[in-house]
């Protein structure tokens, strides 16, 4: 145990596997996290994200493999539960309780005295912006407010690792923004590790320091967003928008750049779409550099670039590429 603590990893999963009969929900997944990390747990439906969370929170028992949470091994579920917080996907709430009563109850479940539990409940309600509704019944809360209450509940034990399973599901953009802000504060203010399972890749790019991509139970990629995008080897392309009357001059300038292919852009007379003749085996950074050379060439030809948009450079592209590759 001491070795695990010295390594300063908050989550360490080694060959984690969960099978239901012949079906494998999680297959040989290994990864580690550090304090303050916000880790995006990504994957298509049925990839094993929720099962992974339930394994790491001891709700399910692994078929094989090992894991440690804040230095405590999987064989000590009580110790682990004291150190994790969870916002389950589609979790329910007792509508007749008030937000304050709900948090107070959960603090008591962690063994706090009544007075301490009251203090924790009040503090967390303030932290998630629900202090003005502390005495209102949960049945009167909006979905966003319930999610924030669920986040507060996940924090009653000041956990070392917090798992958020689809926290923004069904929330409007304002609600999503609020939840993301709270998640940032949990990681950076409290120093907790946040494992964020979500389908919203834009929010992963926005808040996550690392990502783990699962597909059909297996880990297909992990690392920083940049690392994952580099290893995904997504075909890159770019679109330049230039003044319509200068489009031919731009095309001529681009034709001078080696390895560039100028593609058709039907119906858009002011757009030039370019791609590399081959990007296989070429590092993503180099691909970007070659595409960026196109701007230099166009600018050198005295054609103003009105807009420049890189394709295949977003986490969504990497995610789709990796899950398709794994499926094939």
């Amino acid at each position, binding site marked *: 145990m001491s070795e695990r603590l010295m390594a300063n990893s908050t989550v360490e999963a080694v060959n984690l596997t969960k099978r*239901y009969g012949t079906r494998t*929900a999680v297959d040989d997944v290994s990864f580690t996290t550090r304090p303050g990390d916000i880790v995006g747990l990504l994957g298509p439906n049925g990839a094993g994200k*929720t*099962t992974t969370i*339930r394994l790491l*929170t*001891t*709700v*399910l*028992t692994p078929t094989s493999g090992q894991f440690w949470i804040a230095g405590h091994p999987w064989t000590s579920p*009580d110790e682990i*539960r*004291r*150190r*994790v*917080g*969870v916002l*389950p996907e*589609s*979790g*329910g*709430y*007792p509508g*007749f*309780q008030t937000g304050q009563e709900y948090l107070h*109850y*959960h603090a*008591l*479940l*962690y*063994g*706090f*005295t*009544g007075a*301490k*539990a009251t*203090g*924790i409940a*009040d*503090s967390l309600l*303030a*932290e*998630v*912006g629900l*202090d*003005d509704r502390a005495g209102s019944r949960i049945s009167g809360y909006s979905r*966003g407010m319930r999610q*924030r209450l*669920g986040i507060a*509940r996940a924090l009653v*034990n*000041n956990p*070392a690792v917090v798992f958020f399973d689809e926290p923004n599901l069904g929330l409007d953009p*304002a609600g999503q923004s*609020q939840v993301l*802000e*709270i998640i940032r*504060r949990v990681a950076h*203010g*409290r120093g907790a590790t946040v494992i964020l399972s979500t389908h919203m890749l834009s929010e992963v790019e926005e808040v996550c320091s690392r990502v783990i991509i699962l597909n059909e139970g297996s880990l297909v990629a992990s690392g920083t967003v940049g690392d994952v995008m580099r290893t995904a080897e997504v075909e890159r392309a770019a679109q330049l928008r230039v003044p319509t009357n200068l489009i031919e001059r731009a095309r001529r300038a681009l034709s001078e750049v080696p390895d560039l292919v100028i593609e058709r852009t039907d119906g858009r007379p002011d757009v030039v779409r370019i791609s590399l003749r081959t990007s296989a085996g070429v590092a993503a950074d180099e691909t970007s550099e070659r595409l960026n050379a196109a701007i230099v060439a166009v600018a050198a030809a005295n054609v103003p670039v009105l807009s420049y948009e890189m394709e295949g450079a977003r986490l969504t592209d990497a995610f789709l590429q990796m899950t398709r590759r794994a499926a094939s």
Partner: protein
Amino acid sequence: MTTVVKSRDLRAPRNALDRPAGRSGWLVVAGQEVQDLWKSGRGPLLLFCFSVLLSAVTYLASTNQALNFLERREAVNLLLQFAVAVGVLVTLIVSADGISGERERGTLESLLVTPVSRRGIIAGKLIAALSLWLAAFLVSVPYVWVLARAVGILSKALILGLVVGTIVAIGMASIGLLISAVCNSNKTSLAASAFLLLILFAPTQLPSGLPQGWFFDVLQLANPVASALSYLTTQLVQGAHWTEDLVYLVSPVITVVLAGGALILFGPGIVRLRAGGDAG
């Protein structure tokens, strides 16, 4: 709406969370479950229905007694049997909702990730269900008082009702929780539990004039509800001493031991997010 971002930090230090000194988990669950039962309106509603039925039975028993169709002791026995049977039924209904209801409402997972053991969760829910039995018994006290005081069996009737009813309630509530843990649907759990009590209670309603052989007697003794009600009859109508006919309490006690034992042994394995498997 604007999210209020507060900078104050009242966090407990993580080391302090290792062993906080609050109440035991099962006591916390029990307290909250009892509160939920009564504040959500389920408990008061069930108790109201129980009171209405008990009023009707008391009225019928007392008027029959006035017309000499029913001896006074029999009237007390009838009322007490009804109070125990229906009191146990409402207890069973509440316990049958215990696990499957949490699953359906999506509140079970947040309970399972707390340090409270699954046995602790079961114990808390069992206590909450039994609180309804105790409330039902308290409601029946004035009705028993009305009928029993004239024949001098008030205290005997009340003690018998409390002891025998509590034994049967613990056994049936344990069975209800077991059913609830293994049923994915709350409707299935409630229907199965109600059906179970019905088939256990039905034999007690057979006319006493029907020919009854040894096989019926064995069935009667094996049936924890029918057997417990028979014990009440021997005590209240036939005036037996409480140590006589204790054989009637064997099956209720065995039910408590078996169902309670099953909860203790298998509870941690069957209180899970989905019944019948480990699937999340």
